[in-house]
């Protein structure tokens, strides 16, 4: 498959994802409406309408401001030429190789080795690398990491991944809210009989399931994508070993990326949470050993 098909597919998937999230939200709106409004269809419809409006607004927000949110969450600040000359030069070089405009270049004040790319298209892209990576990786390794990120930029992976940051976050938040409200003020119309209890149970089940589904979507989106970006990154830098060496250093490094959150984890170059942590159960990244093996076989 050539790169243009890949881009078209990623664009389509971004829109599909927004649509899917809208559906999930409207579904949640329906259940909320059922629970709070009993059988009153007006209340149900208004809940669904609100859910629809929220999902449209959030989809727009994630499309236009998802990158800013991701950078903000990770406390990234712009790189400057005096301090980070070789980092900036590497990004500029790889942008030339990838034939995309030079993205905005950021540094994340974190001592682990990590990086991410974000933005809705190559014209509005940002690349961020941790201070730890700038310190611990040599030039070839750093270029390997940046090449991986540039290929996310080039084939619109990052649009999909950025949109996911906000949409997944929102669903998690909403179902959290719902469950909490059930806990404290729920079941006011307790005497409405069995029908209500069933709806209530369904509501709770959905509120628990929705974030899990959202999480699974996030996984499906990011795991395969990392292998693909490793491969096309190696094509860009013409040097798979650099990237493989960087991954080896990450493996040895015990530092976790503290500035990563659950919502931004899948953006990162390598899993920000190290082994043994609970988040690994839903790992957004393929195992390092497997990535290294594939790169060294190139």
């Amino acid at each position, binding site marked *: 498959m050539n790169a243009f098909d890949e881009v078209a597919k990623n664009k389509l998937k971004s829109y599909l994802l927004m649509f899917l999230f809208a559906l999930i939200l409207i579904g949640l709106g329906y259940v909320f409406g059922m629970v709070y409004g009993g059988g009153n269809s007006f209340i149900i419809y208004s809940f669904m309408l609100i859910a629809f409006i929220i999902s449209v607004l959030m989809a727009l927000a994630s499309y236009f401001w998802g990158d800013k949110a991701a950078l903000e969450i990770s406390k990234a600040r712009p790189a400057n030429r005096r301090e980070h*000359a*070789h980092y900036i030069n590497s990004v500029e*070089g790889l942008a030339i190789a990838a034939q995309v405009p030079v993205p905005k270049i950021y540094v994340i004040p974190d001592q682990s080795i990590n990086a991410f790319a974000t933005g809705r298209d190559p014209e509005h892209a940002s690349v961020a690398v941790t201070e730890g990576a700038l310190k611990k990786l040599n030039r070839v390794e750093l270029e390997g990491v940046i090449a991986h990120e540039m290929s996310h930029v080039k084939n619109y992976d990052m649009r999909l991944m950025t949109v996911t940051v906000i949409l997944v976050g929102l669903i998690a938040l909403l179902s959290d809210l719902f469950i909490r409200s059930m806990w404290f003020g729920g079941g006011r119309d307790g005497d409405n009989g069995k029908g209500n209890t069933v709806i209530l149970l369904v509501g709770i089940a959905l509120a628990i399931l929705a974030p899990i589904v959202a999480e699974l979507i996030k996984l499906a989106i990011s795991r395969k994508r990392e292998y693909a970006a490793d491969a096309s990154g190696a094509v860009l830098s013409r040097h798979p070993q650099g990237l493989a060496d960087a991954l080896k250093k990450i493996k040895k490094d015990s530092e976790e990326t503290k500035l990563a959150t659950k919502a931004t984890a899948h953006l990162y170059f390598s899993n920000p949470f190290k082994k043994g942590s609970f988040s690994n159960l839903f790992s957004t990244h393929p195992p390092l050993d497997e990535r290294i093996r594939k790169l060294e076989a190139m």
Partner: protein
Amino acid sequence: MIGEIMIEWIITIVVVVILLILILMYNRFVVLRNRIDNAWAQIDVQLKRRFDLIPNLVETVKGYAKHEKKVFTEVTKARTALMEAKTIPEKAKANNMLSETLKSLFAVAENYPKLEASENFRMLQEELSGTESKIAYSRQAYNDSVLSYNNGIQMFPGSVIAGMFSFKQRDFFKTEEKEAQPVKVQFE
């Protein structure tokens, strides 16, 4: 009667489809060709940048290592050769020569610890090696673009359209194999 109308329709559709394919392919070749020109402009930008950095570098090194005249003349000569090169193969050759002489300049610099320690020299070194790898990357982008363009106009049915509108093959920016890697600059 109905048969005739059908045939007319079929012919019309076939003609329209062929025309559409023709237009699409033509436009695609134009895009690919423009991409080559753009990639070439990138190489030029980077070559120019390196070209501008060199006098500065030579001056800095001279400040610490006056006696290394041979290296200075070689670098300056290579720089002039690059300035005079016009065609793509000429530029490629001059560029390789300049890379070689810069390598020996940096090798010489290693014998002067004070020079190596100077902030100005380090920055120039970083800028030069950065530019060096940008040249390599822009050459790579250029060659990639040439490859997809050449493939496009040589394969059937693209070759027919390319022939009709005289899309000509482009040259690769060739480099000796050992030159494919940018100059390694130690700064640790």
